[in-house]
């Protein structure tokens, strides 16, 4: 797919109204009651806030923080298993950021690793992602260091870039094309790609250089330095709260637990989990293969920049910078990656 089209701002408002009228759920970055910006359900395009990175990522639309897997009902010694509906209502996300859209695509690998995670792919198929090219980031952003960029199309069905009196539209996928084809009056002729260039360049300049674009160097150093004082050093700052994992668009580790609701029935759920806590790997016997925070901090970096690349030839990070912004102790992924590149290229360990 490489077709392009154009949508005026007024038509974008109309499109959201059309979708809502057709019974399609619409979500996008919008103010919460406490004034922050989160991806959440919206009722009109006017709710959408495009100049701030949402606190959360798109992860919860595909892997909810808590999700029922099935229900069980006991009757004497017998147990009935009640399946959870595997049909998901159609949804369009309007105003996704390129880093967040890409993250969903990155996670498709693990969610389809020999076994297909049906709830994940059920929601994937039911959801159309309309991404807006990022206006630019802060010092924690580093998407260009992981093969992406403020106007990357990965994971998006449509990519919109501001131009003239509306948005230049890149139709990225068949699903994106279906959305355009379903509302032909909303799309039409307008400013071309040239009108988007200065916006793209300005955005790119704002995030470039925060981390060297050397993912292979990072991967090799991490693979070869499982035992290194560096891990203990960065872990001294970590409280093990796992806030980084909750904010992360690609952290997908989960727990599976039973939640009894009455004496005889309940729900088996999967809940977000984090490798930053000690209980994550603790055996019932008391043995813990990752006994200290050093091993847990190493695991997070290792999983993202070495293990996932080795398994799937992809990086489990989209450079959104949320972990750095979220951390109560100031743990900064850009500092960690800069130090790794510096050590790997023999330029000392200072940030």
């Amino acid at each position: 797919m490489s077709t392009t089209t154009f949508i005026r701002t007024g038509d974008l408002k109309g499109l959201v109204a059309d979708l809502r009228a057709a019974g399609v759920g619409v979500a996008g970055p919008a103010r919460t009651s406490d004034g922050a910006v989160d991806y959440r359900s919206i009722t009109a395009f006017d709710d959408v806030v495009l100049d701030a990175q949402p606190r959360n990522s798109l992860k919860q639309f595909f892997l909810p923080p808590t999700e029922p897997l099935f229900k069980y009902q006991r009757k004497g010694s017998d147990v009935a298993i009640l399946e959870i509906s595997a049909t998901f209502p159609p949804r369009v996300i309007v105003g996704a950021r390129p880093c967040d859209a890409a993250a969903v695509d990155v996670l498709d690998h693990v969610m389809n690793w020999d076994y297909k995670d049906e709830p994940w792919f059920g929601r994937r198929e039911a959801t159309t992602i309309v991404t807006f090219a990022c206006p630019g980031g802060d010092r924690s952003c580093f998407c260009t260091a992981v093969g992406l960029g403020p106007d990357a199309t990965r994971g998006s069905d449509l990519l919109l870039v501001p131009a003239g009196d509306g948005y230049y539209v890149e139709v990225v996928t068949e699903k994106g094309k279906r959305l355009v084809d379903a509302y032909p009056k909303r799309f039409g002729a307008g400013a071309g790609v040239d009108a988007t260039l200065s916006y793209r360049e300005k955005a790119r300049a704002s995030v470039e250089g925060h981390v060297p674009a050397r993912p292979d160097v990072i991967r090799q150093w991490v693979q070869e330095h499982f035992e290194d004082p560096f891990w203990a050093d960065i872990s001294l700052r970590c409280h093990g709260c796992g806030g980084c994992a909750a904010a992360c668009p690609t952290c997908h580790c989960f727990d599976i637990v039973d939640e009894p609701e009455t004496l005889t029935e309940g729900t088996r759920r999967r809940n977000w989990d984090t490798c930053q806590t000690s209980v994550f790997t603790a055996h019932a016997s008391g043995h813990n293969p990752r006994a200290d925070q050093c091993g847990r901090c190493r695991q997070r970096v290792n999983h993202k920049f070495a293990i996932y690349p080795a398994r799937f030839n992809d990086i489990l990070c989209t450079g959104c910078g949320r972990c750095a912004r979220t951390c109560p102790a100031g743990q900064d992924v850009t500092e960690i990656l800069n130090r790794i590149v510096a050590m790997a290229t023999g330029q000392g360990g200072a940030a």
Partner: protein
Amino acid sequence: MNVYQPFRVRVEEKIAETADTQTLKLRFLDEDVAKSFDFKAGQFGEYSVFGAGECTFCIASSPTRKGYIECSFKTVGKVTNAMRDVEVGDVMGFRGPYGNAFPMEKMHGGNVVFIAGGIGLAPVRCVIWNVLDERDKYKDVTIVYGARTVADLVYKRELEDWGKRPDVKLWTTVDPGGETPDWKGSVGFVPAIVEKAAPKADNSWAVVCGPPVMIKYTIPVLKKMGFTEDRILTTLENRMKCGIGKCGRCNIGPVYVCKDGPVFTAQEMAKLPNEF
């Protein structure tokens, strides 16, 4: 039905192995599943007591015995406590089989030495019965099994059977001080008994499972006898939730116990980072 939904299994038999170790024999409720269910020696599954949750164990019965599976477990946590309390006739859950398996075909025509300590006999027992049920496919079979005390030996009834078989050389041992007045087996640690049993290394495979300290001191003994690292097999366990590579917690560095294991050669073990 999603991949996290278990088969229903009924508890057919419940055996107290030791004061804190049980074996459950579980039969699939669904006739079609009972007929079609198949696994390989060494694979594992997720067992559940509805309301308590899921737990990971190897399948302790042999794939040569169809229609049911067995698991043996020590009562240590929430789910294993609930499993201790189930009664014959109760319905539990099972997902699996997952993971890789012991290379049974490669072992055909060779001698097999089984070495296990404590509850570590559970995954080894699966392979023992697989070999004994197809006895003509293998040459000499030697079993060395040890526990801390006589009371800690599991599968006692089967140890007796194996001891009586002319086609099995069985060595049982307990740690010094763990013997009873009528104990007829050896007294001493497993690696020392392996040395005493002296199985020949030529055309042989060793299947080893037990506490880390036992494995640590047994592998050098086997290597000294001439066993090569690619013919020393063990099975690892780690905390798991999904069993299928998604929940993100069983990896030892780059190696996923659920996907790359649980069966590893000593050669593969030697390459693992220090995280298990």
